[in-house]
């Protein structure tokens, strides 16, 4: 029963129409929230007592590093659906997300190191959290290069999904790395469990920037999945009359 539901819901055609319907709303909502919370965070919140103004990078760094991991988990989930239920759309999603995940991880890395200059004095520090994000970045590159090196799409999808699943083992290591090797990195400002360790005035813009950035990234994923669907289903009849 589930298989029928998934196939019926997740057929590229219905997906495409859904995306078109919601895309503009999501895009509008997230661009507004993002702009507001960034300006709010950058210009309207008071200076941090310890780090002065450089802490404001948190509004750009935290959403990016948060997204880089959740995008990978999203890829892992869609590769599992692809391998178990042979849902074509899930394979397109995996390939659609990979470059965007690479972008967010790249932003997280660069913003982290730029943030490091004033606070830790060096732009690169072999601290566990940063190295794991670097590892994640290399994994994204590995995934993209693996996908591009195969002409036969079905084969590339299968290999990619298996690599994503094996790579997913690395995500908990990143999570654990902050407390396992208690090193330089400040422990996560927002953890789902305990009380956030930054005071509310700075917290609200942070939550705003995360939701805004999240929405924008989702729009990017929708766009790139549309692109994937066009490439892969180009000689299907419905694509012609859709276009």
């Amino acid at each position, binding site marked *: 029963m589930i298989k029928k539901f998934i196939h019926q819901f997740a057929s590229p055609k219905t997906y495409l129409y859904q995306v078109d319907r919601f895309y503009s709303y999501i895009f509008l909502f997230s661009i507004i929230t993002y702009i507001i919370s960034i300006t709010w965070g950058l210009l309207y919140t008071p200076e941090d007592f310890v780090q002065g103004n450089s802490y404001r990078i948190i509004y750009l760094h935290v959403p990016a590093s948060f997204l880089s991991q959740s995008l990978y988990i999203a890829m892992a989930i869609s590769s599992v659906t692809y391998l178990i239920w042979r849902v074509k759309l899930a394979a397109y999603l995996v390939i659609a997300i990979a470059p965007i995940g690479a972008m967010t991880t790249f932003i997280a890395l660069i913003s982290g190191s730029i943030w490091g200059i004033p606070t830790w004095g060096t732009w690169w520090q072999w601290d566990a959290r940063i190295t794991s994000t670097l590892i994640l970045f290399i994994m994204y590159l590995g995934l993209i290069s693996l996908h591009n090196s195969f*002409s*036969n*799409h*079905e084969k590339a999808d299968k290999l990619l999904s298996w690599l994503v699943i094996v790579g997913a083992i690395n995500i908990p290591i990143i999570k654990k790395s902050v407390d396992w090797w208690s090193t330089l990195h400040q422990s996560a400002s927002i953890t789902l469990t305990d009380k956030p360790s930054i005071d509310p005035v700075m917290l609200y813009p942070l939550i705003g920037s995360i939701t805004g950035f999240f929405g924008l990234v989702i729009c990017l994923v929708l766009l790139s999945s549309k692109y994937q669907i066009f490439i892969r289903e*180009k*000689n299907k009849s419905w694509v012609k009359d859709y276009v």
Partner: protein
Amino acid sequence: MNNNSLIVAENIGYKINENKLFHRMSFNINRGEALHIKGSNGSGKSTLIRIILGITQPVKGVIENKSTKEICYLGHKNALKSYLTLEDNINLMQLNNNMMLNDYLEKLELKKYKDVTVSNLSFGQQKKLALLRVFLNNSDLIILDEPFVGLDDNAHLELTTFLNNELEKNKSVIFTSHIPCNINSKIIEIPQ
């Protein structure tokens, strides 16, 4: 669908990156029956064989293999280790404890090359060595992809007689071959 049908295929279809190789192909192979797959090169003969073998999943349709024993298969590549001697290759193919081994080595004149490394053997001899796997098989389905290529006359004759009496032993054979051979078999044509 009588019970002695070994392979049953219902309108299987296959396509690579949107271009269709073949579709709506159904056939079934009974025990003791031979099937000759004909088609110009690149028309998907080998892909069909790989689908029957179960290596490749057909994009559409269903294929069912009722034989419990391992399938005896020989493709274009004859799966030999060129850096090892003929003797080692026979061990690798796990044929060394087969009593018929020696007289087939005699028939195919491979006896005297026992410890010659395979890379020094001629193409025909390597083919015969690979065919040992077919002569000494104990499976009830034999699949051969262009088996007669590179064989001299007596080996060609040897293989044809062998395949014919395998059919009498109620085994079934699926093969592709551009070289004519007198094995009475059903024929399937793959359109271009």
